């Protein structure tokens, strides 16, 4: 079943065709990798779908409803969440509060100013559970700004997961962390995403990560979709090898 469908989605920045007539589909329950060289239009596509940018033309349909002109807030309520390439956290809040805030927001409780947030047991408990699944429970009372890079990447994803989205975009969840840390981080993220039945789209550069963890791969090139298939199909696709992987293919 199609969870998300974009039709001839287009976004120009001046003369640059960042996203050029893209028909992109995400199936319910899959873990999809979106790959392509820098400037291929991956992040722009995610920005269009998450509502950060408005498309010049084309449409976005999520769960059968047209969300093309919906606000960011509306899309989040519908179940579309995202993380960011450069970690975006609330640095002066504690790690626990970063997650608790999201739960308050999801439950419409941020409107409340008449009770102490720390006294909301169910929310605190849920936030602790989320942190535990991400292996961050021992850091709960630290300020988010004081975490190490790998932990920050995990918390960034934890914040998005705490929204309980139906569709989650993860923009380079392992960028900026050491090669050694990549696999453990991806193991945690993918196991949580699968156990919570979250459909996920992961933008990633590391081909080993992409082939190991995804069910399907979409390759973008200069604003268009170049190829779409299973990891095995993409691995052997000549067009992809020449335009994208190039000389790295042997590696």
């Amino acid at each position, binding site marked *: 079943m199609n969870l998300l469908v974009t039709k001839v989605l287009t976004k120009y920045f001046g003369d640059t065709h960042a996203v050029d007539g893209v028909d992109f589909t995400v199936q319910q329950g899959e873990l999809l990798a979106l790959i392509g060289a820098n400037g291929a239009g991956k992040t722009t596509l995610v920005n269009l779908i*998450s509502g950060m940018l408005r498309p010049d033309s084309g449409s976005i349909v999520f769960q059968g409803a047209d969300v093309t002109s919906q606000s*960011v807030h509306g899309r989040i309520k519908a179940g579309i969440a995202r993380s*960011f390439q450069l970690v975006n956290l609330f*640095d*002066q*809040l504690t790690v626990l509060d970063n997650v608790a805030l999201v739960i308050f927001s999801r439950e419409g409780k941020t409107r409340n100013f008449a009770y102490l947030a720390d006294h909301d047991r169910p929310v605190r408990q849920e936030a602790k559970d989320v942190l535990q699944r991400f292996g961050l429970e021992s850091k709960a009372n630290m300020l988010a700004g004081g975490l190490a890079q790998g932990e920050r990447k995990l918390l960034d994803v934890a914040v998005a997961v705490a929204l309980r989205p139906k569709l989650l975009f993860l923009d380079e969840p392992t960028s900026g962390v050491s090669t050694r840390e990549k696999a453990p981080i991806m193991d945690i993220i993918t196991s949580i995403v699968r156990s919570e039945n979250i459909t996920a789209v992961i933008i990633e550069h590391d081909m080993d990560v992409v082939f190991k963890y995804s069910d399907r791969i979409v390759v973008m090139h200069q604003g268009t979709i170049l190829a779409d298939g299973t990891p095995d199909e993409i691995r052997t696709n000549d067009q992809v090898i020449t335009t994208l992987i190039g000389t790295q293919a042997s590696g």
Partner: protein
Amino acid sequence: MTMVTVLSRRLLLSAAVILALLVILPSALDPYQTILLSYGLIFAIAALGFNLLLGYTGLLSFGHSAYFGMGAYAVAFIVKYLKITSMEVFLIGGILASAAVAALFGFLCVRYTRIFFGILTLALSQVLWSLAFKFFWVTGGTDGLRVPTPSLLGMQMAPGQDKMTFLAHRYYYYVLIIFLAGLAVMWVIVHSPFGKALQAIRDNETRAEFVGVQVRKYRFVAFLISGAYTGLAGALWVPLNGLTTPEILHWTFSGKIVFFTVLGGFQTFVGPIIGAVVYNYLETYAVGHTVYWQLVLGIVLVVLVLALPAGIVGTAKRLGLRLRRAA
């Protein structure tokens, strides 16, 4: 956990000591000193409101004189046109009038952030100042408007009673109770889920939007609460001063509110309170001792920004932490 309980117990203890001091002081001090302290507490209410925007939402307003002045002028208009001198009516009128102005100005200002927000708040407050300055048949112009001693909870000042004594006793306690109530309410606000959302906006606007916080709406509500607090302070200030003039609407007064908050430390809850009280003493003594009082305050500000950017309370907290670690 024990660390936390020890800390909060110590916090409660020191709060109790300060509260006891505030209650006893009028009988120990001469009336002039008590009145000076009342001014400090009133400015502290304004600073608390101001810091909801600066410290918790990340918006630096340079136009809070507008709400303080609106609170004060609303009281003066109630006296002038309605011939009412009830303090409770003053407070309600002051809060409503300043909240109305904050709603209008906030609607425009929260579309912007950083320097654009600051400049817009300043410009709008100067509009109010020029209205008070020019429409002298309504506002009294630079002569201002007089406000008599009000009745507190329906009780008038006893005939023949000295005004100083009244202000230094009954009025002081009135101010103290409202200050404590305002303090408690603000404490709950900043620690509520709403307060957390404001802090999230301060730390990372984009991410806040992407976890479902409607940034502009929350900023607007924070602006409204902030303006109403500052307006409440203005309404409490005017009977003490006996007079309101356009000076209180001028942007330099907004600068003072910023000064209170930076002096005390905007990254802490109690910082702005301490800053307001200390600034009030500082200015009073500087004015009393030298004609170059502005120079004195200027030097304090420069030293503050260069040497103690965390303010009095922020610096004290850091020192305390360092001592505890060393121990």
